[in-house]
Structures are given as C-alpha cells and as structure tokens.
C-alpha cells in the first residue's frame, strides 16, 4: 500500500510532502520522543506522532519513514512544512488519536501488524 492509498483509505488530510505519495508502506511505529523513535522506527514505517516540528522531519528523513501522521490534529510548524516539502516526506493529519490510528492501520496492513 502506498502513502496515497493510506491517506484515501483513512480519510487523512494532507499537509505537506505530496511528492512522496508513491512511497510504499511496510510498517508502522508510534511515539513522540525523537531519540526513542530513531532507535526503533524502521524504513518504510508510517510514523504516528503529535510532534510536528522541524526535528520530527529530520527524524523521519533519517529513519527513512514513509510518512508522518499527526494524530489528534497536532500542529505542523511552518518551517517543518517547508522542510517536509523539500525532502518529499508526506505529512498527513487526523482528528483521531494514536491508538485509533494504529488499530486502523493494522487492519489495513495485516501483514505489517505485530
């Protein structure tokens, strides 16, 4: 499943990084402490977080995450949006909380669920 298909299936709003929409999703990780995420998130993951700052974009880039989903409508900073567009990292947003999103994603991607 691509990022675009995920966004459509879960009615996620796109905030930035449309150029990365074709990226294939292979898993999911949830967390807000950046170093923790850096240690655990894997290449191709959807990253569920409330961290919408520029450092979160750096972490997504370094871990090679497929996209970021900002849960509970967490804000995306303006400079973070610019960086995400530049690095082609899709940023999606939802009103749902992280748990609800993780459950929804595990239904969509049963092969990637723990």
């Amino acid at each position: 499943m691509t990022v675009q298909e995920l966004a459509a299936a879960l009615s996620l709003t796109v905030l930035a990084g449309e150029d990365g929409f074709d990226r294939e999703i292979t898993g999911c990780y949830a967390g807000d402490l950046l170093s923790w995420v850096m240690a655990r998130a894997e290449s191709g993951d959807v990253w569920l977080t409330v961290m919408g700052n520029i450092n979160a974009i750096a972490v997504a880039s370094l871990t090679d995450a497929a996209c970021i989903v900002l849960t509970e409508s967490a804000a995306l900073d303006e400079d973070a949006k610019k960086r995400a567009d530049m690095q082609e990292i899709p940023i999606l947003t939802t009103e749902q909380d992280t748990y609800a999103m993780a459950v929804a994603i595990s239904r969509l991607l049963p092969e990637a669920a723990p």
Partner: protein
Amino acid sequence: MSGLSLKYEVPGDDFTRAGEASSDVKRKLKKLGYDPDAIRRVAIAMYEGEINMVIHAGGGQAFVTIEPQRVDIVLEDHGPGIADVEKAMQAGYSTAPDQVRSLGFGAGMGLPNMKKYTDEMTIDTEVGKGTTLKMTVLVNHKS
C-alpha cells in the same frame, strides 16, 4: 587509502539547523551508492551527536571521513564536558533542560543510540574543557 573528508560547523542553540550536517552526509553517501543500512546508521548516530552538541555544548565541529569500507565521524566541542560518562551511557538518563524536552528530545537515548548504531565509539571528555566523540560505522557489517 585516503577517503573523502568533510567538515561541518554545528551551530549552538539552534534546533532548526541541527541535523544539517547529518542530512548532508546522508545525501552524499546515497549518491556514492552506499548500503542503505549503513547510511541509516551513520545518519542516526551523527544526528544524535549533533543534537547533543546543540543542547549541551553550544555547538561544535563535525569531521567525517568516507572510505569504501568505513565511515568515521569525529564530533568535537568545547562545552562543559560529561561529568559521568557511565551514567550518560545509560538509556533514559538525561540532563537536558525542560524546553528541550518539549521539542521531543531529552529521552536519555542519545549516547545509547550512537553506541547501538555504530561499530566503534569512544568518548574523550573533560569537565570544563569539552568532549570529543569518535564513531566508526563499518559498511558491510551490520551491528
């Protein structure tokens, strides 16, 4: 043989620019066709080091040498030094101030992550003088 040598200035107290050096190294390694796992390990270890220099040391310098079989990273600062290296190496131990935590840092995972993702790491630190951190990632060797 001598590899490609790079030098970066890491700015102090500027979280918006922290990560520029590691992103640049990541880009270069990608262009050179390095193994994605090695690139990921170099980038994460170096980013953690950069963030540490921004949080604790008022910035510093990063020296990176890229060779076919290894990438060496040296991070040098003239900050306060690390009083208790053993403690600093423990996952979860952090001395980061509260405003840094609100940015998502300060989990006490910086040095443990650097250790985890590199094949060799040494810390040379003196309180009041600064810290020099050396890391090596071996390219075809998964840690």
